[in-house]
């Protein structure tokens, strides 16, 4: 249905409260470490054999919970930067951003990367730069292929794109199909 207009994801570090995409993005899990104890919640932890979650426990938390617990000034939880945003991978991206399979490394590569900036880290400026440059490096290909693939199977073209890029691709395809439809006199 053309009239169904879901709430789009937020831009950059913002989330849209009602956006289904943002809710799913914030369900992604991050490696964290508790910096204080959480009494009576031991059952949440993998081993789950203690009553409390002890200080210093390494566990995976969904992004929404890490954001909810994180405090700049107090040590409650520390969040590990996922590998794909760290120096090693940033070097790969700066060499050639187009070769990376962002569906596999993501699928919310840009979204999750932007959200990581909510957690203080000396790497943040570099992470932000890397996200931006990677996007710029890949955007042209996504745009071009979306404008040239008419009436064909696009699964190979989109399989290595992250979610944001897929949305852009779909948008490009929608414009292309609309134009073709008009050219053929089928838009009336």
């Amino acid at each position: 249905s053309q009239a169904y207009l879901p709430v789009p994801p937020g831009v950059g570090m913002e989330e849209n409260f009602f956006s289904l995409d943002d809710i799913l993005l914030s369900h992604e899990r991050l490696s964290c470490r508790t910096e204080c104890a959480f009494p009576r919640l031991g059952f949440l932890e993998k081993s789950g054999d203690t009553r409390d979650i002890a200080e210093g426990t390494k566990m995976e938390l969904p992004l929404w919970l890490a954001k909810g617990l994180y405090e700049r000034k107090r040590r409650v939880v520390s969040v590990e930067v996922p590998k794909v945003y760290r120096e090693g991978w940033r070097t790969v991206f700066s060499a050639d951003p187009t070769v990376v399979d962002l569906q596999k490394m993501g699928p919310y590569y840009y979204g999750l990367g932007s959200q990581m900036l909510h957690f203080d880290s000396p790497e943040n400026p570099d992470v932000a730069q890397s996200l931006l440059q990677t996007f710029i490096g890949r955007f042209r290909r996504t745009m071009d292929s979306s404008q040239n693939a008419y009436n064909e199977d696009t699964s190979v073209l989109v399989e290595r794109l992250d979610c944001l890029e897929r949305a852009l691709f779909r948008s490009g395809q929608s414009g292309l199909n609309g134009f073709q439809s008009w050219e053929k006199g089928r838009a009336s």
Partner: protein
Amino acid sequence: MFCEKAVELIRELHRLSDGQLPAFNEDGLRQVLQEMKVLYEQNQSDVNEAKGEGRADLIPSIKLRHSCLLRNQRCLAAYLYDRLLRIRALRWEYGSVLPANVRFHMCAEELEWFSQYKKSLATFMRSLGGDEGLDITQDMKPPK
């Protein structure tokens, strides 16, 4: 981890990216509300203990449960809101009388919301184009 049922509701809708309206998941909603009730009661108990017995160490757990409550609230609100967007789209696709198989997927309150939406739209359309009003749901494509 808490809030798994809530995100399942979101996935149910996200899978149907073309705007289809699935059956109203009353049971799913009930489960999420039940989880919220349990979390809230556990927090009330811990808050009383924190205040009454000076157990400040319980505060991190209280905050965690509160994050879960907010998450569940968000997921439910977004689930319901997205369904309304799909239902709204139906007015534009099908007109003011919905097919029975679609109505069957809506809860009573959604039918009421749809009825109100139709009225608002009709009032708006009557206010356009002078005395006769203007049906903007017609002629969605330009003439040849």
